[in-house]
């Protein structure tokens, strides 16, 4: 038989594409592009179909039943695997990291590599031979030397981190009491297991599991609790809004957006040095610059780095707009963009779109730091 099962499908698809190409040609009044695409598709399908015919779908002879049972390729796959799921989740984590913070991104990439590796090895091992037992052995042999130490390290990390979070949240004296109590508890349990030789492994395992979960849960709870307090405080202090670009003493940003992913797409860094010098480092330019260009109508991000000892902010002035309020009344307002005040060592990014060229403005465009005499960078918008 020339027309095998899969070649049937491919020939069918080829014929369908041909027909679709014809219909397209008629329906679109002679527009050829779609028809050409369908024709290519048809050729590809028919070509694949021909290969399938020629190789008879690459089938083992249907009469050779012995080969059906014994060849490695015809073994049933072992069963459900968690690795594809794990891979998908890691891909998700990677994407989330990409838009939120580099730390999460790195964790995502590491997870992704691990999951993919595990998936590939299991997949290979499941078909290594026709014996399932041998396949499992071969997999463990390959993977355990990597898996076990990593799993152990992770377990240890969870325990240590949870402990540290819990103790950070406790006061000094209570911490000491809890620490002593826990130590006693662990000793007690250890002694119990040692004495009761035939202790049911399952029961012991379950108890340890519950303990671990409780510890991790408390750790997470205490960690979250600490942070939430800071955030509410920040909101109360108007941390998130920064109005006006002057020098006045209002809230200053203690941790100005250190993890903004915008930092990866910076047009220029603007740095205020300890002795009040202001300079720029723009992508593609060597060394320290006293002038930068910003493309017109193009969202551009500038990162302000404060290395001086005072809390300071960066202000970008790019001309002014005149609004016509009717009846010959006009209102003039300056176009400015600024960071909030940034403490020593802090940095914050500002994104601006400058619609007009600097040559069209009476006043030059500049970057300045209010309160620092002579700190100025020229800004050109062509």
């Amino acid at each position, binding site marked *: 038989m020339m027309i095998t099962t899969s070649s049937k499908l491919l020939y069918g698809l080829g014929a369908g594409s041909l027909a679709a190409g014809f219909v397209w040609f008629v329906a679109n009044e002679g527009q050829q592009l779609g028809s050409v695409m369908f024709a290519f598709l048809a050729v590809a399908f028919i070509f694949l179909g021909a290969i399938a015919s*020629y*190789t*008879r779908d690459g089938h*083992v*002879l249907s009469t*050779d039943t*012995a*080969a059906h049972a*014994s*060849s*490695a390729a015809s073994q049933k796959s072992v069963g459900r695997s968690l690795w594809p799921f794990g891979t998908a989740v890691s891909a998700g984590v990677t994407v989330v990291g990409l838009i939120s913070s580099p730390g999460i991104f790195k964790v995502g990439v590491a997870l992704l590599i691990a999951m993919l590796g595990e998936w590939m090895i299991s997949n290979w091992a499941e078909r*290594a*031979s026709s014996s399932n037992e041998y396949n499992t052995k071969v997999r463990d042999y390959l993977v355990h030397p990597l898996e076990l130490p990593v799993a152990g390290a992770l377990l240890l990390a969870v325990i240590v981190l949870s402990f540290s979070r819990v103790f950070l949240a406790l006061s000094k004296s209570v911490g000491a009491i809890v620490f002593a109590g826990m130590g006693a508890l662990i000793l007690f349990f250890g002694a119990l297991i040692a004495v009761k030789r035939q202790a049911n492994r399952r029961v012991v395992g379950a108890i340890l599991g519950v303990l671990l979960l409780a510890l991790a849960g408390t750790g997470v709870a205490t960690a979250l609790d600490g942070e939430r307090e800071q955030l509410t405080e920040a909101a109360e202090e108007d941390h998130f809004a920064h109005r006006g670009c002057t020098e006045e003493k209002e809230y200053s940003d203690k941790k100005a957006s250190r993890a903004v992913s915008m930092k*990866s*797409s910076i*047009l220029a860094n603007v740095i205020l040095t300890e002795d009040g010098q202001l300079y720029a480092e723009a*992508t*593609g*330019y*060597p060394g320290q*610059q006293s*002038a*930068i*260009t910003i*493309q*017109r*109508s*193009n*969202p*551009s*991000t500038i990162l302000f780095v404060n290395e001086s000892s005072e809390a300071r902010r960066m202000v970008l002035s790019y001309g002014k707009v005149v609004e016509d309020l009717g009846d010959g009344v006009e209102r003039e307002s300056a176009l400015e963009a600024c960071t909030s005040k940034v403490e020593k060592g802090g940095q914050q990014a500002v*994104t601006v*779109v400058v*619609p*007009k*060229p600097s*040559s*069209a403005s009476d006043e030059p465009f500049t970057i300045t730091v209010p309160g620092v005499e002579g700190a100025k960078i*020229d800004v*050109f918008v*062509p």
Partner: protein
Amino acid sequence: MKNPRRRFLSLAGAAAGLVAVAGCAKDAPQDTWQPAGPNAEMIDNLQRPVFLVAGIVGVIVFAAVAWVVFRYRDRGQAIPEQTHGKPAVEITLTVIPVLILIGVAIPTASTIFDLAKTDDTQMVINVTGQQWWWEYDYPAIGDNAAKYGLSQPIVTSGQLVIPENTKVLLRVTSRDVIHSYWIPKLNGKKDGVPGRVHLLRLEGSKPGIYAGQCTEFCGLSHSYMRMETIVLKRADFDAWVANQLAPYEAPAEGTLAKEGEALYIQQCSRCHQVNGLADAEGNLIVSAPEQYVVSGAAPNLTNLMTRNTFAGASWDLLTQECRDVVWKASADEFGAKYLAGVSADCLNQKDLREWLRNAPEKKPMYVDPTKLQETGGKYRGMPALGLTEDQIDALVAYLLERK
């Protein structure tokens, strides 16, 4: 039935012949195998040996596959003995590719690093992609100002002009979607991504025109998003800069071009900038493309006729005859021919007029006024302005003087 082997061989022969013939294209301005500058040469020096290695491996693999498929095809014979596991073969077949790949990886990595070097930059140019044309601006700071006479920024489009044997660094970005800048004879591709600045070295060692096109699918008229890099001798480049920075010359009173200027102010200046153009009261006119176009930009027309192509370098401003004079000029004569710009006799009236009559018909763009809700009324591209033929005459006369 005919001998199947002969049939197969003649088919394969025909296919191979076709592929070979396809390599005979004579006029191939975007040929990666003909580098015209040191960066492209670095790539070329890498791709030739790699292509050779890959080609040999490819031929061996395909021949082996073909042989196996043919030799062991099903003729009803018994299934051969099934075995698994042959460590010697498996290890050999792993180690050989690994060695080959390592051999390829070492020069590849070093070329990548060489191509990413920026500490030898002599000139910086910003390159901004938008649907569907490239804008170039030459910042008037740093070495550009100090060594290349750029006392003011230059903004141009479509054709990037650079001095010969100069290490130019392009800062590539985009105003809307992702585009990709590629002049095959001068260097590899670099994506222009909104909000990011990517660096691309560019250097031409021989005066001439080097063509390229956007290589990241960017919407409706992606195929009309072309560009050219013009390499000029240093003296010619200086002349080019001086001309770009020359003050605006208004058309003489009473001419057709003067009428065109008035029309231009009324119809075009809201999107297009002509530097130095002023209104009746002497106030400089500043375009406001950010109010009309999604990307916030339209080509600067101050020196339109110093370029040879327009609208994403997709159409010639020169007639075929005059175009040949420039494109086919020898390296020595090229500069003078290019600097001559577009004269009245050489102007490709047909395409420019069609553009002014109905731009979106020539180059598909999203400019249908009834479908602009999504973009808040802003166009992607240049709309049809419903000009009369007389108005087009006047505008062409005006544009002809923009050199």
